[in-house]
Protein backbone atom coordinates (compact mmCIF):
# COMPACT_ATOMS: atom_id res chain seq x y z
CA UNK A 1 0.00 0.00 0.00
CA UNK A 2 2.82 2.39 0.86
CA UNK A 3 4.35 1.65 -2.53
CA UNK A 4 1.13 2.66 -4.31
CA UNK A 5 0.92 5.84 -2.28
CA UNK A 6 4.49 6.83 -3.12
CA UNK A 7 3.88 6.05 -6.79
CA UNK A 8 0.73 8.19 -6.92
CA UNK A 9 2.19 11.11 -4.98
CA UNK A 10 5.34 11.04 -7.13
CA UNK A 11 3.19 11.04 -10.24
CA UNK A 12 1.34 14.08 -8.94
CA UNK A 13 4.57 16.02 -8.46
CA UNK A 14 5.90 14.91 -11.86
CA UNK A 15 2.65 15.97 -13.56
CA UNK A 16 2.71 19.34 -11.84
CA UNK A 17 6.34 19.96 -12.83
CA UNK A 18 5.70 18.96 -16.45
CA UNK A 19 2.59 21.10 -16.64
CA UNK A 20 4.43 24.13 -15.36
CA UNK A 21 7.74 23.74 -17.19
CA UNK A 22 6.74 22.42 -20.63
CA UNK A 23 6.61 25.03 -23.37
CA UNK A 24 3.64 23.65 -25.30
CA UNK A 25 0.35 24.82 -23.81
CA UNK A 26 -1.51 21.81 -25.22
CA UNK A 27 0.79 19.41 -23.33
CA UNK A 28 0.38 21.54 -20.22
CA UNK A 29 -3.39 21.09 -20.34
CA UNK A 30 -3.19 17.35 -21.04
CA UNK A 31 -0.82 16.88 -18.12
CA UNK A 32 -3.13 18.83 -15.88
CA UNK A 33 -5.90 16.42 -16.87
CA UNK A 34 -3.68 13.49 -15.80
CA UNK A 35 -3.05 15.32 -12.55
CA UNK A 36 -6.79 15.50 -11.90
CA UNK A 37 -7.31 11.80 -12.62
CA UNK A 38 -4.56 10.77 -10.20
CA UNK A 39 -5.92 13.24 -7.68
CA UNK A 40 -9.28 11.46 -7.78
CA UNK A 41 -7.55 8.13 -7.07
CA UNK A 42 -5.88 9.78 -4.07
CA UNK A 43 -9.26 10.97 -2.81
CA UNK A 44 -10.30 7.32 -2.81
CA UNK A 45 -7.21 6.45 -0.75
CA UNK A 46 -8.10 9.21 1.69
CA UNK A 47 -11.62 7.71 2.05
CA UNK A 48 -13.43 10.62 0.39
CA UNK A 49 -15.47 9.08 -2.46
CA UNK A 50 -17.63 12.21 -2.84
CA UNK A 51 -14.53 14.17 -3.72
CA UNK A 52 -13.32 11.44 -6.07
CA UNK A 53 -16.50 11.60 -8.15
CA UNK A 54 -16.54 15.37 -8.19
CA UNK A 55 -12.87 15.68 -9.10
CA UNK A 56 -13.15 13.13 -11.91
CA UNK A 57 -16.18 14.89 -13.37
CA UNK A 58 -15.00 18.46 -12.87
CA UNK A 59 -11.21 18.50 -12.86
CA UNK A 60 -10.62 15.94 -15.57
CA UNK A 61 -13.79 16.72 -17.51
CA UNK A 62 -15.13 20.22 -17.36
CA UNK A 63 -12.07 22.33 -16.67
CA UNK A 64 -10.01 20.52 -19.32
CA UNK A 65 -12.79 21.13 -21.84
CA UNK A 66 -12.80 24.80 -20.89
CA UNK A 67 -9.02 25.10 -21.33
CA UNK A 68 -9.20 23.37 -24.72
CA UNK A 69 -12.04 25.62 -25.83
CA UNK A 70 -10.00 28.67 -24.87
CA UNK A 71 -7.08 27.44 -26.99
CA UNK A 72 -9.42 26.71 -29.89
CA UNK A 73 -11.07 30.11 -29.63
CA UNK A 74 -7.71 31.90 -29.57
CA UNK A 75 -6.54 29.93 -32.60
CA UNK A 76 -9.72 30.79 -34.51
CA UNK A 77 -9.30 34.46 -33.71
CA UNK A 78 -5.70 34.34 -34.97
CA UNK A 79 -6.77 32.59 -38.19
CA UNK A 80 -9.50 35.12 -38.94
CA UNK A 81 -6.99 37.94 -38.30
CA UNK A 82 -4.49 36.36 -40.67
CA UNK A 83 -7.13 35.93 -43.37
CA UNK A 84 -8.10 39.58 -43.01
CA UNK A 85 -4.46 40.68 -43.20
CA UNK A 86 -3.89 38.60 -46.32
CA UNK A 87 -7.00 40.04 -47.96
CA UNK A 88 -5.87 43.61 -47.24
CA UNK A 89 -2.38 42.94 -48.49
CA UNK A 90 -3.71 41.59 -51.77
CA UNK A 91 -6.08 44.53 -52.14
CA UNK A 92 -3.15 46.88 -51.52
CA UNK A 93 -1.02 45.17 -54.16
CA UNK A 94 -3.77 45.39 -56.72
CA UNK A 95 -4.25 49.05 -55.88
CA UNK A 96 -0.55 49.69 -56.54
CA UNK A 97 -0.78 48.07 -59.96
Amino acid at each position, binding site marked *: MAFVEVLLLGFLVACALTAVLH*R*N*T*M*ITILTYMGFSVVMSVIWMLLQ*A*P*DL*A*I*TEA*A*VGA*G*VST*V*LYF*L*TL*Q*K*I*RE*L*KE*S*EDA*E*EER*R*RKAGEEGQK
Partner: protein
Amino acid sequence: MSTSNRFKAFFDWVDGEEWCAKTPDEVIARQKKAPVRRPTYELDSYRRFRRLNQAVGALFCITLAVVLTLVVVSFPPFGDPANPANNEVPARYIERGIEETGSANLVGGMILSYRVFDTFGESSVLFLAATCVTMLLRRDRNNTTSRDLRELRSDDRADRKDKDIVLRTVVLLLLPVSVMVGFYVMLFGHLSPGGGFSGGSILGGGLILYSRTFGSGSVRKFFNEHLYHLVKVVCLMCYGLILVYYVFTGSNGLDNHIWLGIPGNIISSGIIMPINVLVGFEVACTIYAFYALFSEGEM
Protein backbone atom coordinates in the same frame (compact mmCIF):
# COMPACT_ATOMS: atom_id res chain seq x y z
CA MET B 1 7.57 27.44 -48.41
CA SER B 2 11.20 26.46 -48.11
CA THR B 3 12.40 23.59 -45.97
CA SER B 4 13.88 25.78 -43.26
CA ASN B 5 10.68 27.80 -43.07
CA ARG B 6 8.69 24.62 -42.77
CA PHE B 7 10.94 23.44 -39.97
CA LYS B 8 10.55 26.78 -38.24
CA ALA B 9 6.79 26.56 -38.55
CA PHE B 10 6.89 23.03 -37.15
CA PHE B 11 9.00 24.09 -34.17
CA ASP B 12 6.67 27.01 -33.59
CA TRP B 13 3.82 24.54 -33.56
CA VAL B 14 5.66 22.31 -31.06
CA ASP B 15 6.27 25.34 -28.90
CA GLY B 16 2.56 25.79 -29.04
CA GLU B 17 2.30 29.54 -29.17
CA GLU B 18 2.48 30.30 -32.84
CA TRP B 19 -0.85 32.11 -32.50
CA CYS B 20 0.56 34.67 -30.11
CA ALA B 21 1.98 38.02 -30.99
CA LYS B 22 5.60 37.85 -29.90
CA THR B 23 6.45 41.55 -29.69
CA PRO B 24 4.74 44.89 -28.98
CA ASP B 25 5.22 45.92 -32.62
CA GLU B 26 3.32 42.88 -33.71
CA VAL B 27 0.52 43.75 -31.28
CA ILE B 28 0.28 47.29 -32.70
CA ALA B 29 0.46 46.02 -36.25
CA ARG B 30 -2.30 43.53 -35.67
CA GLN B 31 -4.43 46.11 -33.97
CA LYS B 32 -4.03 48.36 -37.00
CA LYS B 33 -4.12 45.32 -39.32
CA ALA B 34 -0.94 46.57 -40.98
CA PRO B 35 1.91 44.31 -42.17
CA VAL B 36 4.23 43.39 -39.33
CA ARG B 37 7.56 45.17 -39.13
CA ARG B 38 10.08 42.82 -37.57
CA PRO B 39 11.30 44.56 -34.43
CA THR B 40 14.81 44.69 -33.11
CA TYR B 41 14.65 46.30 -29.73
CA GLU B 42 13.53 46.23 -26.18
CA LEU B 43 11.88 42.87 -25.89
CA ASP B 44 15.40 41.47 -25.57
CA SER B 45 15.61 43.26 -22.27
CA TYR B 46 12.21 41.81 -21.35
CA ARG B 47 13.37 38.32 -22.24
CA ARG B 48 16.53 38.73 -20.23
CA PHE B 49 14.40 40.02 -17.39
CA ARG B 50 12.15 37.01 -17.80
CA ARG B 51 15.06 34.62 -17.35
CA LEU B 52 16.30 36.51 -14.28
CA ASN B 53 12.74 36.59 -13.04
CA GLN B 54 12.45 32.83 -13.28
CA ALA B 55 15.72 32.28 -11.43
CA VAL B 56 14.54 34.54 -8.62
CA GLY B 57 11.19 32.78 -8.71
CA ALA B 58 12.72 29.33 -8.35
CA LEU B 59 14.76 30.55 -5.39
CA PHE B 60 11.67 32.11 -3.81
CA CYS B 61 9.61 28.97 -4.24
CA ILE B 62 12.31 26.69 -2.85
CA THR B 63 12.55 28.94 0.21
CA LEU B 64 8.79 28.85 0.56
CA ALA B 65 8.84 25.05 0.27
CA VAL B 66 11.49 24.70 3.00
CA VAL B 67 9.65 27.02 5.37
CA LEU B 68 6.30 25.33 4.78
CA THR B 69 7.84 21.88 5.21
CA LEU B 70 9.28 22.92 8.56
CA VAL B 71 5.80 24.11 9.54
CA VAL B 72 4.14 20.93 8.32
CA VAL B 73 6.52 18.75 10.33
CA SER B 74 5.19 20.26 13.53
CA PHE B 75 1.58 19.56 12.55
CA PRO B 76 -0.39 16.84 14.37
CA PRO B 77 0.46 13.43 12.89
CA PHE B 78 -1.39 12.08 9.86
CA GLY B 79 -4.23 9.67 10.56
CA ASP B 80 -4.23 10.02 14.33
CA PRO B 81 -7.68 9.81 16.01
CA ALA B 82 -6.52 12.27 18.69
CA ASN B 83 -5.99 15.14 16.23
CA PRO B 84 -7.52 18.47 17.25
CA ALA B 85 -9.62 18.39 14.06
CA ASN B 86 -11.55 15.39 15.35
CA ASN B 87 -13.40 17.22 18.11
CA GLU B 88 -17.02 17.15 19.19
CA VAL B 89 -18.38 18.70 15.97
CA PRO B 90 -17.75 15.72 13.64
CA ALA B 91 -18.75 13.39 16.49
CA ARG B 92 -22.13 15.09 16.66
CA TYR B 93 -22.49 14.99 12.85
CA ILE B 94 -21.77 11.25 12.79
CA GLU B 95 -23.77 10.18 15.84
CA ARG B 96 -26.94 12.19 15.28
CA GLY B 97 -26.64 12.83 11.55
CA ILE B 98 -29.02 10.09 10.46
CA GLU B 99 -31.79 10.85 12.90
CA GLU B 100 -31.60 14.60 12.26
CA THR B 101 -31.12 14.69 8.48
CA GLY B 102 -32.19 11.20 7.36
CA SER B 103 -29.27 10.91 4.95
CA ALA B 104 -27.06 7.82 4.84
CA ASN B 105 -24.29 9.78 3.12
CA LEU B 106 -23.15 11.80 6.12
CA VAL B 107 -21.08 14.24 4.05
CA GLY B 108 -24.00 15.04 1.76
CA GLY B 109 -26.30 15.29 4.75
CA MET B 110 -23.92 17.63 6.49
CA ILE B 111 -23.37 20.09 3.65
CA LEU B 112 -27.07 20.17 2.71
CA SER B 113 -28.65 20.46 6.12
CA TYR B 114 -26.33 21.66 8.87
CA ARG B 115 -24.32 23.82 6.46
CA VAL B 116 -26.95 24.50 3.81
CA PHE B 117 -26.34 28.24 3.91
CA ASP B 118 -22.71 27.65 2.94
CA THR B 119 -23.74 25.46 0.03
CA PHE B 120 -26.26 28.04 -1.12
CA GLY B 121 -23.40 30.54 -1.30
CA GLU B 122 -21.48 28.05 -3.46
CA SER B 123 -24.42 27.75 -5.87
CA SER B 124 -24.62 31.53 -6.02
CA VAL B 125 -20.93 31.67 -6.92
CA LEU B 126 -21.60 29.29 -9.82
CA PHE B 127 -24.56 31.43 -10.91
CA LEU B 128 -22.41 34.57 -10.78
CA ALA B 129 -19.62 32.91 -12.75
CA ALA B 130 -22.09 31.90 -15.47
CA THR B 131 -23.43 35.47 -15.58
CA CYS B 132 -19.93 36.97 -15.84
CA VAL B 133 -18.89 34.56 -18.60
CA THR B 134 -22.09 35.45 -20.47
CA MET B 135 -21.24 39.14 -20.15
CA LEU B 136 -17.68 38.63 -21.38
CA LEU B 137 -18.14 36.14 -24.21
CA ARG B 138 -21.68 36.54 -25.52
CA ARG B 139 -21.80 37.26 -29.21
CA ASP B 140 -23.54 40.64 -29.40
CA ARG B 141 -22.72 44.12 -30.61
CA ASN B 142 -20.94 45.10 -27.39
CA ASN B 143 -18.43 42.29 -27.57
CA THR B 144 -17.76 41.82 -31.27
CA THR B 145 -17.07 44.18 -34.13
CA SER B 146 -19.41 44.22 -37.10
CA ARG B 147 -16.82 42.44 -39.23
CA ASP B 148 -16.54 39.55 -36.77
CA LEU B 149 -20.31 39.32 -36.54
CA ARG B 150 -20.59 39.13 -40.32
CA GLU B 151 -17.93 36.40 -40.48
CA LEU B 152 -19.48 34.43 -37.65
CA ARG B 153 -22.90 34.64 -39.25
CA SER B 154 -21.56 33.59 -42.63
CA ASP B 155 -20.25 30.24 -41.44
CA ASP B 156 -23.20 29.11 -39.41
CA ARG B 157 -21.58 26.74 -37.02
CA ALA B 158 -24.82 25.37 -35.66
CA ASP B 159 -24.79 22.91 -38.54
CA ARG B 160 -21.18 21.92 -38.06
CA LYS B 161 -21.22 18.18 -37.48
CA ASP B 162 -18.45 15.70 -37.12
CA LYS B 163 -18.58 13.19 -39.95
CA ASP B 164 -16.29 10.70 -38.23
CA ILE B 165 -18.17 7.41 -37.95
CA VAL B 166 -16.05 6.15 -35.04
CA LEU B 167 -16.72 9.23 -32.98
CA ARG B 168 -20.43 9.19 -33.74
CA THR B 169 -20.81 5.53 -32.80
CA VAL B 170 -18.81 5.87 -29.60
CA VAL B 171 -20.78 8.93 -28.56
CA LEU B 172 -24.07 7.18 -29.28
CA LEU B 173 -22.95 4.30 -27.05
CA LEU B 174 -21.56 6.57 -24.35
CA LEU B 175 -24.31 9.16 -24.20
CA PRO B 176 -27.08 7.02 -22.59
CA VAL B 177 -24.61 5.73 -20.03
CA SER B 178 -23.40 9.19 -19.10
CA VAL B 179 -26.94 10.59 -18.81
CA MET B 180 -28.00 7.60 -16.71
CA VAL B 181 -24.96 7.84 -14.43
CA GLY B 182 -25.56 11.57 -14.06
CA PHE B 183 -29.15 11.06 -12.95
CA TYR B 184 -28.15 8.16 -10.68
CA VAL B 185 -25.47 10.19 -8.92
CA MET B 186 -27.90 13.08 -8.57
CA LEU B 187 -30.88 11.09 -7.24
CA PHE B 188 -28.86 8.80 -4.96
CA GLY B 189 -26.80 11.63 -3.48
CA HIS B 190 -28.19 10.90 -0.01
CA LEU B 191 -27.44 7.15 -0.14
CA SER B 192 -24.16 6.82 -2.01
CA PRO B 193 -21.20 9.09 -2.82
CA GLY B 194 -21.99 11.93 -5.14
CA GLY B 195 -24.64 14.55 -5.02
CA GLY B 196 -26.07 17.38 -6.99
CA PHE B 197 -22.86 18.92 -8.15
CA SER B 198 -21.09 15.82 -9.46
CA GLY B 199 -24.28 14.46 -11.05
CA GLY B 200 -24.88 17.78 -12.74
CA SER B 201 -21.33 17.87 -14.07
CA ILE B 202 -21.72 14.39 -15.57
CA LEU B 203 -25.03 15.42 -17.21
CA GLY B 204 -23.42 18.58 -18.54
CA GLY B 205 -20.53 16.52 -19.89
CA GLY B 206 -22.99 14.32 -21.74
CA LEU B 207 -24.65 17.39 -23.25
CA ILE B 208 -21.23 18.71 -24.32
CA LEU B 209 -20.40 15.39 -26.01
CA TYR B 210 -23.72 15.42 -27.87
CA SER B 211 -23.35 19.01 -28.95
CA ARG B 212 -19.77 18.49 -30.12
CA THR B 213 -20.61 15.47 -32.25
CA PHE B 214 -24.03 16.30 -33.71
CA GLY B 215 -23.79 20.09 -33.85
CA SER B 216 -25.23 22.58 -31.41
CA GLY B 217 -28.35 22.93 -33.55
CA SER B 218 -29.49 19.49 -32.45
CA VAL B 219 -29.13 20.47 -28.79
CA ARG B 220 -31.01 23.70 -29.45
CA LYS B 221 -34.05 21.66 -30.44
CA PHE B 222 -34.67 20.67 -26.82
CA PHE B 223 -32.49 23.08 -24.84
CA ASN B 224 -32.48 26.70 -25.94
CA GLU B 225 -31.48 29.90 -24.23
CA HIS B 226 -34.97 30.59 -22.89
CA LEU B 227 -35.13 27.19 -21.17
CA TYR B 228 -31.59 27.71 -19.87
CA HIS B 229 -32.48 30.98 -18.13
CA LEU B 230 -35.73 29.48 -16.81
CA VAL B 231 -34.07 26.39 -15.32
CA LYS B 232 -31.17 28.33 -13.87
CA VAL B 233 -33.28 30.92 -12.12
CA VAL B 234 -36.11 28.62 -11.02
CA CYS B 235 -33.72 26.04 -9.54
CA LEU B 236 -31.79 28.64 -7.58
CA MET B 237 -34.99 30.29 -6.33
CA CYS B 238 -36.56 27.00 -5.21
CA TYR B 239 -33.34 26.19 -3.41
CA GLY B 240 -33.44 29.60 -1.75
CA LEU B 241 -37.06 29.13 -0.66
CA ILE B 242 -36.34 25.72 0.88
CA LEU B 243 -33.32 27.21 2.61
CA VAL B 244 -35.29 30.16 4.02
CA TYR B 245 -38.03 27.88 5.36
CA TYR B 246 -35.53 25.47 6.90
CA VAL B 247 -33.34 28.11 8.50
CA PHE B 248 -36.29 30.25 9.69
CA THR B 249 -38.07 27.40 11.45
CA GLY B 250 -34.83 26.06 12.85
CA SER B 251 -33.60 29.35 14.25
CA ASN B 252 -36.96 30.12 15.86
CA GLY B 253 -37.28 26.70 17.46
CA LEU B 254 -40.36 25.78 15.41
CA ASP B 255 -41.21 22.34 14.09
CA ASN B 256 -40.48 22.29 10.38
CA HIS B 257 -42.83 19.39 9.49
CA ILE B 258 -40.35 17.94 7.01
CA TRP B 259 -40.88 14.21 6.65
CA LEU B 260 -37.50 12.49 6.98
CA GLY B 261 -38.62 9.04 5.88
CA ILE B 262 -36.87 5.76 6.61
CA PRO B 263 -33.09 6.08 6.24
CA GLY B 264 -31.87 3.96 3.34
CA ASN B 265 -34.97 4.36 1.20
CA ILE B 266 -34.80 6.29 -2.04
CA ILE B 267 -37.54 8.72 -1.04
CA SER B 268 -36.21 9.84 2.28
CA SER B 269 -33.93 12.40 3.91
CA GLY B 270 -36.23 15.44 3.83
CA ILE B 271 -34.81 18.42 1.99
CA ILE B 272 -31.62 16.75 0.80
CA MET B 273 -32.90 14.90 -2.23
CA PRO B 274 -34.89 17.82 -3.71
CA ILE B 275 -31.93 20.14 -3.19
CA ASN B 276 -29.60 17.62 -4.86
CA VAL B 277 -31.88 17.48 -7.91
CA LEU B 278 -32.22 21.27 -8.09
CA VAL B 279 -28.46 21.82 -7.78
CA GLY B 280 -27.84 19.10 -10.35
CA PHE B 281 -30.05 20.72 -12.97
CA GLU B 282 -28.54 24.12 -12.31
CA VAL B 283 -25.00 22.80 -12.62
CA ALA B 284 -25.77 20.89 -15.81
CA CYS B 285 -27.23 24.05 -17.36
CA THR B 286 -24.30 26.17 -16.24
CA ILE B 287 -21.71 23.76 -17.57
CA TYR B 288 -23.38 23.47 -20.94
CA ALA B 289 -23.65 27.27 -20.99
CA PHE B 290 -19.89 27.58 -20.35
CA TYR B 291 -19.25 25.25 -23.29
CA ALA B 292 -21.65 27.02 -25.63
CA LEU B 293 -20.35 30.47 -24.75
CA PHE B 294 -16.72 29.50 -25.12
CA SER B 295 -17.17 27.67 -28.41
CA GLU B 296 -19.79 29.77 -30.21
CA GLY B 297 -20.72 32.76 -28.12
CA GLU B 298 -24.38 31.90 -27.80
CA MET B 299 -26.55 29.16 -26.44
